[in-house]
């Protein structure tokens, strides 16, 4: 019962906090737009990690080859 009471209090704390926001609403909007641009637009369409989709073994081989190739 005590745990439930604590969880309910925490839930109410956050709920009331978000409900009573004034400046916070604008800021959350900015944060959401920014996160969408960073994680959806930039991450999905523009940033493709060069070693993604490889196993660790493949990554170490690839980087090893790259480092040796750049000696020339």
């Amino acid at each position, binding site marked *: 019962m005590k745990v439930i009471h604590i969880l309910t209090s925490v839930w109410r704390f956050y709920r009331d906090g978000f409900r009573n926001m004034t400046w916070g609403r604008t800021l959350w909007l900015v944060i959401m737009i*920014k996160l969408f641009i960073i994680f959806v637009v930039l991450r999905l369409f523009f940033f493709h990690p060069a070693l993604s989709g490889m196993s660790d073994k493949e990554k*170490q081989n690839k980087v090893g080859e790259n480092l040796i190739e750049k000696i020339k």
Partner: protein
Amino acid sequence: MLDTSLIDWSRAQFALTACYHWLFVPLTLGLAVIMGTMETLYVIKKDDFWKRAARFWMKLFGINFAIGVATGIILEFEFGTNWSNYSWFVGDIFGAPLAIEGILAFFMEATFIAVMFFGWNKVSKSFHLTSTWLTGIGATLSAWWILVANAWMQHPVGMAFNPVTVRNEMTDFSAVAFSAAPAMKFLHTVSSGWLTGCVFVIGVSCWFLLKRREQPMAKASIKVAAIIGLFSALFIMFTGDQSGLQMAKNQPMKLASAEGLMDGGKNMPFSVVPGIKIPGMLSVLATHDINGYVPGINDLINGYTDPITGEKHLSADQKMVKGRLALNAFRDFKKYEKTDQAKKDSAQLVLNKNMKYFGYGYIKDKHELMPKSKIVLVYWAFRFMVGIGVFLSLVMVLMLWFGRKDKLENNRWLLYTALYSIPLVWIAGQCGWILTEVGRQPWAIQDLLPLSAAVSGVESSSVVITFFLFLLLFTALLVAELTILLKAIRKGPEPIVESK
């Protein structure tokens, strides 16, 4: 435009992202101390005046935090895309600090920032005050782990290169996290953030005084910020001095570049600006001894013997030979890794012996180690950083002096000076990073990996496109921040809400 090299565009993109990110971080660190101090005064003095002041600066902290949060994530995207060789090469060293940063500090901030903003009159004063300080400490701890990673790139310690995995593996966590280089870098950088917050608070408070609004709060804020700011400035001088010692020891080429010092010697003068020198000062700064020996760029390129210790230092050509030995040994190791144990072991021996110079194997011409553009840039970056720091310290002394006599409003020139000095503290911070990062070129990791080996084989056109996308995104965020911040400042502090 698209003809410019991949390395240059990748560097430009990283620099742009890091510079924009660093617009938000120092203000977060600085305002955290100001609002924590004011709330502490509120709890101790039980005076709602301090609560109102703390809440006002807290609101500005919240705006800056919200706009700046996650802007650093893009740097991690760039590591994976543009600097994949580097990312894999440093993996374990970077992985640990960044993971700790993500888990510990981020969740600490996220938890306590909610209590700080939502908890007024809902939790006890002491719990709220603790949350406010823990929010600031969380932000500071975030900075700690990032700066540990950066310090390692300047002075790689506590690791061993594993040619099988092609990664540096951590062998000594305390050396990576707590040795002098990361400690000084952390303290110097964080205290520069405190100074940023103080200069911002003083400037905004001066605006209120100029507008004849909120005078008691503005004067009290100036007093608190000037005291913390002066303490920060003194601390920055101490940690800057210690960082100088570290630079002289671990990155002498960066120090020589920052001084434009071609030929070294004992009892070397410090160049204030071209044509004005302080005798012996450079030796004092670099060695804490007026007769200390400081090598110049030519000494570092041609090799030298320290006349005081008798220690011999290799020339760039000798280091390049050893670097080539290390790289060839690494190539042989990979070639015979699965086919010839004896040749593999032999290659590993040579590699281990010359690993310290691994990166020099990629240097084609020793003049790559001292590009002239770098010397001009770091020379002036250092002087702007120090000059602005001294000027801002003077402004804060004057603020305290006239504030003590209650004559701030009578000296409108000082109020205008402080108001228009706000951007200077950011310029000083950016100059500090230019000194740190441009000064160590051409290295991604000092002596181990030059940029030419660290960069990925991506199309430079794609880097150019993302460069301009970032420019747009960050400029939009900056405009959003300034617009919301100015609106909040114009509105001023909220009326006092009845305390519990």
